[in-house]
């Protein structure tokens, strides 16, 4: 992947041959036009990104129930957060989910990507693999919710068929998170595989040929060529998938709704519940900000650890 510099500025009016006199006028007109072109997006940005970011920060220092004006209470929400066992439970639950989800998903996706690279360029295969990613989270959740059902689900039929005890996948605390994680692995592994696949395509073929001449086995080449050269892509994929994984909501909302007994009350669901069911917008905002900071730190550390912006391809 030899990336050209991204900030290719417009060549300074090289081909334009206006006289010096109207050059200034042209530039001015271009600047005005530019602002007009950006205007709608800028309005959207200010109204739905910048302003909410600022007011979200402010809400996090207030007591706000939506019906009366926010009342400033200093850092009370943050001290509450530190001593709220449910907040820490949510963080723990979410981390456990992310660990299973990302661990399984990344390994499977890497495997699928390597298989595809070795076996086929078929668009049909790639299309099938990507299919689950295109349907809504809600749909993926509902189908598996049915397939995992205690009484009617095919999976429990199979389990009972081979003589084991039926499992309440969504009803038992220790099963709920792994089950939800599995559903999202199912939905995302193919898509993640295609991202990695795109990275694999960028590894020059002659590196493998050289490896083969040196008598390297498949496994050896995977370890010594593929993985190191794929590192920047893998790092980027990890940052994106981990960030997304931390914000799981839909699957939980249509299946367990946080239960059984907080076992799946992940951070996004807890924030949603606090703000929109209990109308504690101040505390909800404080937790959302905590999540933001957590993700930013996480991203920074990940990029540092994986040296994501430096390729070994040179």
């Amino acid at each position, binding site marked *: 992947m030899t990336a050209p510099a991204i900030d*290719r500025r*417009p060549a300074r009016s090289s081909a334009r041959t206006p006289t010096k006199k109207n050059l200034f006028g042209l530039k001015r007109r271009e600047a005005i036009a530019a602002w007009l072109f950006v205007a709608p997006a800028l309005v959207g940005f200010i109204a739905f990104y910048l302003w909410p970011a600022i007011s979200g920060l402010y809400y996090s220092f207030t007591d706000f129930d939506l019906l009366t004006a926010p009342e400033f209470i200093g850092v009370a929400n943050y001290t509450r957060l530190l001593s709220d066992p449910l907040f820490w439970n949510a963080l723990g639950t979410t981390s456990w989910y992310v660990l299973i989800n990302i661990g399984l998903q990344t390994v499977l996706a890497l495997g699928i990507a390597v298989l595809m690279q070795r076996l086929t360029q078929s668009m049909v295969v790639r299309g099938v693999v990507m299919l689950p990613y295109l349907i809504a989270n809600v749909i993926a959740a509902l189908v598996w919710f049915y397939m995992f059902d205690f009484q009617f689900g095919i999976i429990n039929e199979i389990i009972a068929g081979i003589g084991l005890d039926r499992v309440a996948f969504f009803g038992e605390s220790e099963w709920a998170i792994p089950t939800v994680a599995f559903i999202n692995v199912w939905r995302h592994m193919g898509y993640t595989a295609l991202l990695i696949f795109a990275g694999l395509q960028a590894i020059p073929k002659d590196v493998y040929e050289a490896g083969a001449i040196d008598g390297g086995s498949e496994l050896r080449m995977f370890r010594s060529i593929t993985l190191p050269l794929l590192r920047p892509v893998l790092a980027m994929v990890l940052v994106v998938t981990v960030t997304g994984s931390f914000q799981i909501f839909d699957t939980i909302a249509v299946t367990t709704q946080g239960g059984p007994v907080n076992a799946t009350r992940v951070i996004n669901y807890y924030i949603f519940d606090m703000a929109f069911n209990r109308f504690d917008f101040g505390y909800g905002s404080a937790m959302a900000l905590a999540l933001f900071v957590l993700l930013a730190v996480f991203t920074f550390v990940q990029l540092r650890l994986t040296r994501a912006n430096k390729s070994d391809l040179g």
Partner: protein
Amino acid sequence: MTTIINAPAVTAPQELDRAPRPRRRTTPKFTLGRAMAWVALGAVMLITLIPFYWMLRTSFSTSTSLGSDPGSLLPVDFTFGAYERVLGLATPAEALAEGGSGASINFWVYLRNSLIVATVTTIGQVLFCSMAAYAFARLQWRGRDLVFSAFIAALMVPPIFTTIPNFVTIRELGLLNTYAGIILPTLLMTPFAIFFLRQFFLGISREVEEAAIIDGAGTLRRFFQVILPLGSAPIVTLAILTYITSWNEYFWPQLVGREEEVRVLTVALGVFRSQTPQGGPDWAGLMAATLIAALPILVMFIFLGRRVINSIGYSGVK
């Protein structure tokens, strides 16, 4: 962050529609390893497809009979009843007899709402983001890099953080339970859309635009007559991605659009799932409803899938 921003720089727009590279070996020799690899890939595809089959199989079953043979690979007591009651074509008595609720459910309304929301969002977002991306990629103006950095920084913010104040805004505007309320936050821009298009616009040949300048074309004409036609491939790709994202969105519409008249399909599915008419959910009805909700995207994917798949890796992230 740098990587994510850098990734799409790999893009060469002209490569978008290029056919896959020719295979290196025309007939790879058969080995045990290759056979096993195919088996593994086949298993992956099977696991991917089984739930889709299960939706189909269940949607043609009679809900009340499902319990008697939950493991059946074929529909249990084949019927179109589930589709009829989900689409409001069955009488309450018929619906009750097959395990549905007697209450009227009408997925036509939700289908219409999803169509409106996804279509308007896509048109607005693609148009306004193309315009902005043009200004970022091709025009000289003071403040450009600053504004662009601010937009990109918004990619980092977790949606839940801005959702709370956005809900307050929409509520204060009196737009709860309106299409406008559902659509507005993503109508004018998303950081991803601008970022995605800018990368492509940067790569469009400068010569054509310069020829237009010499012809005296203003910025507006250059945008419509040069950039939009030359950038049509990535613009269409973005439109597809935006449509799918908007169609599948659940979190925001379930906050601001719970009312029946504006309820979109994803929200309706959530509501439907929580109804347990006869002790348990109406599984056949639910699966029929999920298929109806997924169908437009699946059809779109069959016709435009190549474009979506090719955009992966080029778009870097999404």
